C-alpha cells in the first residue's frame, strides 16, 4: 500500500520528494510524480514503512491523550499557588493524568 506516512517514515517529504494521488476508482493511492533524486522505493518497502509508522504512531497514543489534559491545566498558576501555600496540587494533577493514561511497558 502506497501512503504518504510510509514515504515520510522513509525520510521523504510530501510535495518536495513526491506527490500522491487517489482517483477514488478503487485502485488506491499511487505516486503521481516522484521528485526526489533517490530512486523511488518499491511498493513493498513503502508498505513496510507504513506499518512501522502506524506502530510508532499508536505507541504515542498515551502521550497525545496526556497532552490534551495537560493543556487544560493552568500549570504556572498551580505551581505559584503550591509554592505560596505549601501544597502539591500541580504534582497531584500531573500524576493523576499520568495514571489515567499510562505509558505502555
Amino acid at each position: 500500500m502506497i501512503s504518504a506516512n510510509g514515504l515520510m517514515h522513509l525520510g521523504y517529504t510530501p510535495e518536495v520528494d513526491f506527490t500522491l494521488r487517489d482517483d477514488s476508482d478503487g485502485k488506491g493511492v499511487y505516486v503521481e510524480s516522484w521528485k526526489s533524486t533517490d530512486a523511488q522505493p518499491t511498493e513493498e518497502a513503502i508498505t513496510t514503512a507504513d506499518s512501522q509508522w502506524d506502530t510508532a504512531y499508536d505507541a504515542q497514543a498515551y502521550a497525545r491523550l496526556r497532552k490534551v489534559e495537560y493543556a487544560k491545566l493552568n500549570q504556572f498558576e498551580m505551581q505559584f499557588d503550591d509554592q505560596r501555600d505549601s501544597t502539591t496540587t500541580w504534582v497531584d494533577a500531573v500524576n493523576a493524568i499520568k495514571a489515567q493514561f499510562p505509558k505502555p511497558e
Partner: protein
Amino acid sequence: MTTKVSSAMQDLTDDYAFTGTISGTAANTPSFSVRLSADQSIPNAAYTKIVFDSENWDTNSAFASGTFTVPSGQAGKYLFVFKCAIGLLDATKTMLARLYVNGAVSNYTHDSLVSPVANFGAYILVSAVINLSVGHTVEAYCYQNNGGALDALATGNEFSGFKLIGV
C-alpha cells in the same frame, strides 16, 4: 420580416406588457450541481478525487462518477465552482482543492490554506473559467496533510458548473 423597436415608433419610457413567446435564445447549458450523499475519507497527503454522487441537477446528463464530460456539440467556455470542506485540521496543517482538466491540473484551478489554529473546520472555494472541447473532462480533488485520514464533509462539499454564452 424583422421590425426593430425604436423611439421613432414607440415611446420607450412607457410600460408594455409582453404577451408573445421568446424563442431561439441561448441557454447556460449544459449545467450541473452535485453534492456528496455521505462523508468521503481523504487519505493523508494524497490528492483525492471527490466522487460526487448526489445530483441537484444535471441538464445534459454530462456528470457521472464524479466527472463532468463535455457532451457532443457543447464545446465552449464553462464556469466551474468547487467548494471543498473537510473535518478538523490541526494547527499549521494544509488543505488544498483543485480541478483536474483531462486528468491534469493547472495553477489557475487550484487554491490552498494553512490552518491557523487547532480543530479548524477548513473549506476552500475554487472557481475557474475553462475553455473546453467535446469529450474533455473536469474533476474535483481535495488534499490534506493532517497526518491521518480526514473526511470531506457531505454537508459542505459541492461542485457545479455551466456553459457560458456570448463569450
